[in-house]
């Protein structure tokens, strides 16, 4: 093979990588004090009483399912978007929708220890699933430190390292509080909160 073609190919990959890296860096910088972040904070202020006493953060949830038959595999990915407000013992989860330039929000799901039968999470991770007294799932959410506008399914630039760390700590304490009061032990595995009885 002609070495020039190899050089052109490698050069193209390097250039694409640099462009991709620069784009991510720009999006990350934009997310530090972005309009998207202020939108989340303002939505929390509108819906949550005493919002100043809460930490507001952006949350998501993604669910991937595989299906199909022998000849084709169907991948289904579902996305949920949330504004999350939390403080020790209390969390509000507000569903969001990003569509056609509009940001819309629904009613807040407000949860305290008394509403919950179980909290499934892994200590140190930033995801959590809340279950009611009948062990039916209410809502699941991830609060990650970095969100960039990669595509239409990742619609915001929000950097929230402090909020992420606060959320991880909140989940650890809240999970312990709820599960101990309900005498439940969770697995810490997504979608499988309890061990199957043998």
């Amino acid at each position, binding site marked *: 093979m002609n070495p020039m073609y190899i050089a052109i190919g490698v050069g193209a990959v390097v250039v694409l990588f640099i462009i991709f890296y620069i784009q991510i860096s720009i999006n990350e910088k934009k997310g530090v004090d972005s309009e998207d972040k202020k939108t989340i904070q*303002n939505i929390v202020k509108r819906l949550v009483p005493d919002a100043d006493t809460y930490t507001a953060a952006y949350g998501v949830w993604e669910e991937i399912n595989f299906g199909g038959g022998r000849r*084709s595999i169907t991948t289904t990915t579902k996305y949920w978007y949330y504004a999350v407000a939390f403080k020790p013992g209390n969390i509000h989860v507000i569903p969001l*929708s990003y569509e*056609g330039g509009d940001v819309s929000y629904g009613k807040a799901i407000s949860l305290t220890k008394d509403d919950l039968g179980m909290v499934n999470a892994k200590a140190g991770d930033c995801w959590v699933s809340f279950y009611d007294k009948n062990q039916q799932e209410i809502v699941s959410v991830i609060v990650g430190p970095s969100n960039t506008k990669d595509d239409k399914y990742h619609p915001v630039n929000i950097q929230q390292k402090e909020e992420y760390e606060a959320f991880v700590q909140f989940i650890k304490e809240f999970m312990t509080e709820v599960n101990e009061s309900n005498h439940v032990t969770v697995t810490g595995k997504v979608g499988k909160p309890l061990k199957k009885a043998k």
Partner: protein
Amino acid sequence: MEEKNLGVKLSEAWSDKGKIALRAGIRFSLGAIVVVAGMRSNPIGRPVSFMAGAVAFLIFALAAAYVFWPLTHLRDYVEFYEYGICYCGKKWTFEELGEVSFCEMKSSRSFFADVYMRSNKKSFLFTYIKDGKKQYNRAYMNIYQ
């Protein structure tokens, strides 16, 4: 038949004529390329037999249906009401529909994704409706301004 009371109309969305024209145009272009390529290697003449002519006509009819299929959605529309929706003239209450969600489905055999509003009762095709989900959000959720 009992008239369904859907309450006050909250918003509406109509067919996306630009998208319909684009998709029909792309299908027409692809079809034209195939036809022209076929004609260059097989110049048109009288069919060998009636059966051959009938098969050729059937293929042509199916191809025409495929090409012009998006145009059948020019009259698609949806109206969102307090207690339900009216989709292309048929009314549905939220009691009938149950939980509603939106999804985009893209096949590996297609360039474009299709958009559906799914419910427990039925899935409604929203691909050719302009800003369908946006109007749904404006009807039933709070818009941040």
